[in-house]
């Protein structure tokens, strides 16, 4: 039996310290926590930074490092620093060194790096070693080379290699959410389908139970399946909450692709052990012929400035779309004329918050709201140009009349200056797999001893 303690869905989201203590008292074999995902958008991968506050990350990681020392077992974080780039791994390593110095314990740290050289990935693409997944964007070697960061998602094989170093702490770059949980049970010969299925159930912490915000769960893996137990006071798992978690953020709730194969849970059976724990058996692991890892890449696509105004005059609220369309036409023409940009060099959009901002042309409901927030969203090749377009837009948002006949209106602005600069923006450029002859070929493993 292999017991995995999972403190939370992600480091930075906090965890219940009493529940964690309960988990430590139950003698886990490993503590595993996820550090990120793509869910917050391409900017974190594009810039190679974490979305969570360093202060939260440090406090929570210090608690887990102390718990690890008490339990005397490995502590592993996957997708360190939200995006798992080498820069985010270094950020996490820096925090870890700081805490180690404060806690005064010698440590062996294994660092697994997942960043890829865009040139090498472009060459692999040209050589036919990269295959698109369903609904992947069209890419060229040039697009791949323009990525500021590309990471490969490590699976259980690479985490196993890190565990085999005997490290106390493993800081992993981008991994699949499940790999850090599945690796040790797989190493110890637990049921492969159960290992991957349990890992999927546990990757969001207590989201698979009632009181989902409570975070901490424990999963016991063995030769035939797994048993999941939420550890917060008053939290319960049921066959329904556990099986329903397979739906979450999954395009297919029965099949989950991982490096080296896929999990099939169509035959899984969920049974209540007592009022709190759930036992699962019958899931299957199907190994693939070729070993592949998924790639994620983000590339810069310009700089963004946003400007916001408020419409409260009922006449303008009622005619907001006409007003906004007219401004976009006139202002775009002015950008082309006065700045010498081509139409394809920039984007200028006005979204009507309170009317159609959520769904745009797909919106099916029409109602006249009391007020409408008008947000101008501008992207241009560089920050100075985005800022300049914001200034060209400014007079329209302040004074643009619906018709020449009406008196000049004035609309509400929130700030001075009204332009807000978001800097460089990024887009996801890859949803592809890379074929590898050796699972470690795209990853680097380094062991660091802290005395």
């Amino acid at each position, binding site marked *: 039996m292999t017991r995995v303690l999972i403190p939370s869905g992600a480091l930075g989201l906090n965890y219940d310290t009493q529940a964690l203590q309960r988990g430590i008292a139950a003698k886990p074999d490993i503590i595993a926590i996820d550090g990120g995902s*793509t869910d917050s*958008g391409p900017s974190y991968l594009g810039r190679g930074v974490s979305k969570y506050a360093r202060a939260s990350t440090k406090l929570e990681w210090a608690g887990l490092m102390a718990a690890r020392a008490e339990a005397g077992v490995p502590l592993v974080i996957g997708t360190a620093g939200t995006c798992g780039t080498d820069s985010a791994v270094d950020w996490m390593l820096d925090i870890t060194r700081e805490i180690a110095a404060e806690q005064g314990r010698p440590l062996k740290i294994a660092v697994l790096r997942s960043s890829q050289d865009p040139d090498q990935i472009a060459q692999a693409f040209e050589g036919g070693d990269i295959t698109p997944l369903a609904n992947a*964007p069209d890419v060229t070697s040039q697009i791949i080379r323009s990525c500021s960061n590309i990471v490969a998602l490590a699976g259980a094989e690479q985490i196993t290699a890190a565990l085999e170093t005997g490290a106390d702490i493993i800081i992993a770059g981008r991994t699949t959410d499940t790999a850090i949980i599945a690796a040790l049970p797989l190493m110890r010969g637990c049921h492969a389908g159960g290992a991957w299925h349990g890992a999927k159930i546990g990757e969001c912490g207590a989201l698979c139970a009632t009181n989902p915000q409570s975070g901490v769960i424990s999963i016991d893996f063995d030769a035939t399946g797994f048993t999941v137990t939420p550890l917060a006071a008053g939290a319960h798992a049921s066959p329904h909450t556990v099986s*329903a978690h397979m*739906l979450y*953020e999954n395009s*297919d709730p029965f099949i989950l692709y991982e490096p080296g194969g896929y999990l099939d849970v169509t035959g899984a059976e969920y049974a209540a052990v007592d009022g709190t724990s759930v036992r699962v058996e019958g899931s299957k692991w199907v190994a693939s012929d070729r070993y592949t890892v998924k790639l994620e890449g983000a590339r810069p696509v310009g700089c963004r400035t946003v400007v916001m105004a408020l419409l409260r005059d009922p006449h303008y609220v009622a005619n907001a779309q006409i007003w906004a369309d007219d401004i976009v036409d006139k202002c775009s023409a002015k950008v082309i004329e006065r700045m010498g940009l081509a139409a394809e060099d920039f984007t200028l959009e006005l979204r009507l918050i309170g009317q159609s901002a*959520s769904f745009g042309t797909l*919106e099916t409901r029409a109602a006249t709201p009391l007020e409408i927030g008008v947000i101008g969203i501008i992207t241009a090749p560089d920050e100075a140009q985005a800022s300049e377009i914001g200034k060209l837009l400014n007079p329209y948002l302040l004074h643009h009349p619906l018709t020449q006949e009406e008196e000049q209106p004035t609309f509400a602005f929130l700030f001075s200056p009204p332009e807000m600069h978001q800097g460089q923006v990024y887009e*996801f450029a890859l949803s592809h797999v890379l074929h590898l002859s050796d699972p470690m070929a795209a990853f680097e493993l380094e062991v660091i001893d802290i005395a």
Partner: protein
Amino acid sequence: MPELRSLVTKLRSKNAGPFWLTIDIFCGSPEAYARVRDGLSTTRVAQVFDTDGQAIKRFDIEQLHVVKFSLPRPAVQGSVTDRDMHGASWAALLGDVEI
């Protein structure tokens, strides 16, 4: 005819990676499940999202009384035209559909 949202206990949408959107309809009872399963065609869902029905994955999960749809995201997550970074709002559009 009632709207979908009034028939079910929970309607949620979320990213399934940057390129896919997934919508889970928790019907809450065998009766509501049967009504949603039979009354909400994949073609209708494709119309709501102005997408190709062939691209939609559909799962009728009787055990959970859930109907689930996964479709290519209306805009790639975080792209210039994206309106919803986490894919959180899109289910509401389906909630308006009359069944």
